[in-house]
């Protein structure tokens, strides 16, 4: 008689939003993997239609509570691309700075509050806090530094309101950064400690030959600008995105699966960014990566936790660099003249490239919008990781296997509320 086993997780904890995992194992053979995501997915795109271009940054920022800055940055850059505007100098730096804040907040939250419990065998971060109070206090203080940047530039911590097409509503003065600078200096030291802490975690032996996709810029580690490149030959301007990527509807998920037309699934996020832009990291981050045992690329997704901490260190270091050199601009924004045009932008959200495309009429009213969040781009890669991981770990007890599968999903810090909403795991072994 055929022996079927099903592993089901109806509600995946410690992922952003909700979804479910379903695994089917028949006669010790993995026969089905489904990462299910439920949510009316394209609500925001419809919601943007007939809105003024100025509204896009604030509306899209509502898609995600964790990465509103990413949505604002992709929105403003797409609009500026459409209207032929280039934002430079201090305003450009301030945009990098606010992104630093978001990476700091998002990465440390995921690394310690959501992912570290998997490695340390705790149910959640609250249990870690009971045993390692000082560590968690420092993590929270570190995250607060990120909040502080976003609040200072964005007007408030969540759903910043100070960002606009062309720049900001109000630019900070140099002296506004005084206390932040001191906090960032502390944060830089803690980031080093954080990297050293996560580098010692036990990592499953698991590597795959991924196609990494990230922005690449000649002079800097990417946030808002650069070409879209991969380690397998992709090298395009953002405006060519739709020629190379397509979104496929799969029955089991409300979030569309994004694939490269020429090949197939691909990988976005910290590990892709790191592997494609290692040379642009500051020396302090490169040295620490080396100390943590990382090479110039990394193909073990479980080690993404180390890279998140390396990128946190980079973000703190970059924030300090920007603040040191900052001179208040004469105007907080450049003048914007709308025109009938289509604009494109990819920026590096904490979880990977976030693509926005808008078509406007001559008055700047949005006719059509397309948003591709990082999690929907990683969805197929997450399933493929499980296809590779589960057969190697099939003989473990269900609960251990389930734990590791959830951990494998959390490698991606999936933001299902962006990709859409709701994760629930099934291992079907009959």
């Amino acid at each position, binding site marked *: 008689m055929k022996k079927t086993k099903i592993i089901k997780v109806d509600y995946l904890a410690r992922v952003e939003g909700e979804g479910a995992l379903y695994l089917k194992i028949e006669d010790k053979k993995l026969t089905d993997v489904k990462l299910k995501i439920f949510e009316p997915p394209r609500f925001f795109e419809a919601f943007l239609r007939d809105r003024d271009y100025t509204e896009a940054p604030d509306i899209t920022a*509502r898609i*995600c*509570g964790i990465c509103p800055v990413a949505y604002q940055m992709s929105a403003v850059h797409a609009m500026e691309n459409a209207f032929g505007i280039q934002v430079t100098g201090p305003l450009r730096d301030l945009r990098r700075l606010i992104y630093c804040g978001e990476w700091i*907040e998002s990465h440390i939250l995921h690394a310690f509050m959501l992912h570290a419990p998997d490695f340390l065998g705790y149910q959640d*971060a609250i249990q870690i*806090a*009971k045993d390692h109070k000082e560590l968690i*206090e420092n993590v929270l203080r570190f995250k607060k530094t990120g909040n502080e940047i976003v609040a200072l530039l964005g007007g408030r911590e969540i759903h910043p309101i100070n960002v606009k097409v062309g720049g900001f509503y109000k630019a900070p003065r140099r002296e506004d950064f005084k206390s932040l600078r001191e906090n960032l200096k502390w944060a830089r030291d803690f980031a080093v400690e954080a990297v050293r802490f996560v580098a010692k975690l036990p990592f499953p032996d698991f590597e795959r030959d991924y196609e990494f996709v990230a922005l690449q810029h000649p002079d800097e580690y990417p946030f808002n600008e650069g070409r879209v490149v991969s380690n397998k030959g992709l090298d395009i301007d953002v405006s060519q995105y739709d020629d190379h990527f397509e979104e496929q509807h799969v029955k089991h998920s409300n979030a569309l699966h994004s694939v490269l037309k020429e090949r197939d699934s691909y990988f976005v996020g910290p590990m892709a960014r790191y592997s494609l832009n290692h040379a642009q990291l500051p020396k302090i981050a490169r040295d620490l990566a080396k100390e943590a045992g990382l090479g110039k690329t990394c193909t073990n997704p479980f080690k993404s936790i180390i890279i998140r901490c390396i990128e946190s260190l980079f973000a703190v270091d970059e924030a300090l660099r920007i603040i040191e050199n900052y001179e208040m601009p004469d105007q907080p924004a450049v003048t914007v003249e709308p025109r009938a045009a289509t604009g494109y932008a990819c920026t590096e959200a904490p979880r990977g490239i976030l693509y926005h495309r808008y078509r406007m009429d001559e008055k700047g009213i949005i006719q059509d919008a397309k948003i591709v969040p990082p999690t929907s781009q990683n969805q197929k890669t997450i399933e493929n990781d499980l296809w590779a991981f589960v057969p190697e770990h099939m003989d473990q007890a269900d609960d251990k296997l389930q734990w590791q599968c959830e951990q494998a999903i959390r490698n991606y810090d999936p933001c299902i*509320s962006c990709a859409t*909403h709701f994760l629930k795991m099934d291992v079907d072994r009959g």
Partner: protein
Amino acid sequence: MDSEKIIVIGIGNEFRGDDAAGLLVVRRLKKKQPAGVELREQSGEAIALMETMDRADAVILVDAVQSGVEAGQIHRYDASEQAMPAQFLRCSTHNFSVHDAIEMARALGKLPPRLMVYGIEGSRFEPGAELSPAVQTALVETVQRINEELQILMGMNTDA
């Protein structure tokens, strides 16, 4: 002696149907601002929430819940006395939820001396949804109950 700091925090997302309940309660309270009480609207972001709670002596927190009972039902927990039920306040789209923020604050010894949590059972949380009529009705009662609770808290203040 300084009077105690009382903060009412409404949590939610106004783009997601009944998830707006906490925000709407606070907005209604603002119409007849109770003296000496700070009214805050928050998204449920854990760190900001923990910080707000940390500087208060008494907190009344209002959020939408999805626990499976009928929409509009009002839950009340005294979270200063006991750990929150694990499934409570987990409907937030934040993975580090309001529940986690409260329990994390407890683990770190940063919970305010008094913390009352009101949960309004919702039924529609999808983006763009309208507020359900049952929640609409529950808002009125929640505002009234919180006002009563505030009277008691302020009375305790005066006694002190």
